């Protein structure tokens, strides 16, 4: 099992009548990777998962698992195991029966199943709970049972359909770490579906960001966060400040943008748009709230600083958030770590902010994620 088995999607289209749920998806998932599909609800990520698990046949294109074309192979014959959003534990079966259901199907004896159940229960730290019913366990415990049940079948690929969404915040954060640890221990490929960018970034080796059936970007968490390929990715993954404007000059990988409100600003062109973006093009530039800081030596950062009026300030414990008047009624957010300073600014005051060039990214204008 070492190394795991890769999954490839080749020109995958999935249509429901006239509706295109997945449009020409091309993804190579390496064996042993923790790979996430990230996107808002209705973007087609669950549809992709169902196509990989075999519950759904693609309209066009191929799904390959370990290099083998899966066309016509049913979910029960694929080397995948699926963890459902609502877990779908069998409520009338005991925990050990739930966990070893895949062995029951293959005709394993009850003694063998008991033994395997005990091993898996130990792995998920639920020793001695095998004779309980699912209804007697807490949310996090059920979660772990669902993982053990999926792993019991010794799949090459584990598919997870937003399995953490029903848990409360603390447990969700704890389970992220735990899922990642389990994945590294068993070494198989995990394909994870989520609308929560925090989950995707913390756990995944690679992330595919989807919008309306289209995969907008595939990359590591860092790629997706720092160098978003499209305005949608930039605004969907994490918080971001958008500056609209036109390109004035292009200089290698850098561009000067005349923004609507904040003057001329310099930014690096996102790799996907290099060579595409020309002077005169409508563009969007993004700077993260944490990449903005206060200017102490005005004038030194001529093209990487901007001035705006303070609207509001919020204290969030570990940080201050300062909101300033921005483009098109939208506010610019700056977040500064709380390192013992007093309040940053008062309402109505003009502040000059600066940023590092590598933290500003520009791309052709496009659709933003819904707030």
């Amino acid at each position: 099992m070492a190394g795991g088995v890769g999954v490839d999607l080749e020109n995958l289209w999935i249509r429901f009548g006239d509706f295109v749920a997945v449009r020409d998806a091309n993804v190579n998932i390496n064996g042993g990777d923790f790979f996430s599909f990230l996107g808002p609800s209705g973007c087609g990520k669950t549809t992709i998962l169902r196509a990989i698990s075999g519950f759904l046949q693609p309209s066009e294109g191929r799904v390959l698992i370990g290099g083998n074309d899966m066309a016509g192979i049913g979910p029960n014959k694929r080397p995948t195991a699926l963890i459902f959003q609502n877990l779908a534990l069998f409520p009338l079966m005991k925990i050990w029966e739930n966990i070893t259901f895949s062995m029951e199907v293959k005709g394993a004896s009850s003694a063998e199943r008991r033994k395997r159940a005990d091993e898996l229960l130990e792995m998920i730290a639920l020793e001695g709970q095998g004779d309980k019913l699912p209804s007697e366990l807490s949310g996090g415990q059920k979660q772990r049972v669902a993982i053990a049940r999926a792993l019991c079948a010794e799949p090459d690929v584990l598919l997870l359909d937003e399995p953490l969404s029903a848990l409360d915040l603390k447990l969700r954060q704890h389970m992220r770490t735990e899922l990642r640890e389990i994945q590294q221990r068993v070494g198989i490929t995990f394909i994870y579906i989520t609308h929560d960018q925090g989950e995707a970034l913390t756990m995944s080796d690679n992330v595919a960001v989807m919008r309306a059936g289209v995969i907008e970007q595939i990359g590591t968490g860092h790629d997706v966060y720092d160098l978003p390929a499209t305005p949608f990715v930039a605004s969907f993954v994490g918080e971001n400040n958008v500056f609209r404007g036109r390109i004035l000059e292009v200089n290698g990988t850098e561009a000067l943008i005349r923004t609507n409100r904040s003057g001329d600003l310099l930014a690096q062109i996102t790799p996907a748009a290099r060579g595409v973006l020309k002077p005169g093009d409508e563009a969007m530039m993004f700077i993260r709230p944490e990449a903005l800081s206060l200017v102490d030596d005005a004038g030194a950062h001529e093209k990487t600083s901007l001035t705006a009026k303070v609207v509001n300030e919020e204290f969030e414990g570990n940080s201050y958030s300062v909101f300033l008047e921005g483009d098109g009624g939208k506010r610019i957010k700056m977040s500064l770590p709380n390192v013992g300073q007093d309040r940053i600014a008062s309402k109505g005051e003009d502040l000059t902010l600066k940023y590092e060039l590598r933290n500003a990214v520009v791309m052709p204008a496009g659709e933003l994620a819904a707030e």
Partner: protein
Amino acid sequence: MGKTVASKAEKLSISTLLISIIPIVIIVLVLFDTLVSDGFSAASSLIVGLIILWVAVICGVLATELFSDFFRTNGRLLGSVMLGLVAFWIIVLILLPQLSMLDYSFRYNLPPSEQGGPKDVYTLANYRHLIYGAGGGEGTYNTVDLMVFLRTIIAAMAVTVADLILCYPLAYYLGQSRGSGFVRLLVVLLIIPYWINEILRAFALKIVFADGGILNAAMMKLGLIDQPIDFIRADVALYAGLGYAYILLMLFPMYNAIESLDRNQIEAARDMGASWIRIHRRIVIPHAKPGITSGMTMVFMLSAGALAAPQILGGPSSLWFTQLVYQWFNGSLNWQQGAAYAIVLLVASITIVLTFMKIFKVNMGDIGK
């Protein structure tokens, strides 16, 4: 537990007590009086015991479960009216008729002049008649009636199983197709024929199955048979009629149960490699068990107690046990004998249902789901 009961009981108002307790007490006293005047026998003390038990159970249940919260939410007047109606229902419509049947079944069939006289005492003669026949002698059994009884029970079981087999796939299909327009139409189409009177439906089936009926005519036209088949004599019509009469009572509880099954569970089982048979055996049927039990109980009880279908569709040589009961009541005007037969059928049916529930590990509470 004891504390809450006591606190609830304290909240009982006088009017509540008057409405619920007094009619029951009066009934008990009246029945008790008639029993005592006839002198005590084993049977009469049994009846008195049963009545007292019933009353105690009803009072206990009503007092602890319903009253305090019930009056708080509904007010005194409306609450009293509602409770009074429920008491009327339970006592007048259920308890009294059944108790009087039970009482009848232990008495002799006497002319009016001798009723209440010295000859009007309790007896087991009516039950003895079912087993030993008119002679009541040793060694001879009432084989005719006993065979009819046995045949009724077995046939009712067969009808129940046949309905189960017919309904399960349909209920699964309806339950798992998530109320699309087509499914709703299908359900309506299933219900509409039941707007027609049961007797008319039986006659309609008789027309279909008769010698010169549609079915025979069609099969002869197609050259499948030369001679019409006597479906009535072969009891095909009877079983079809019984099966059809109560099939919806099998379908709907099962449909409801299967509809509430999470689809993901089926997919999870499939994902783990389970065959369709295993999915039904391990996931769907266990989940639908309360519905299946509820449906089977109703179909069995009602077909064992059916009268119209056997009367209309039964062959000339086949009798349904209810027809014997009917004959005793209406033909022979021997209500006492009829009551005994009816009670035997009731007790046997309940015993059979409870036995099967025990075997298949179903709780009584599940049926109400």
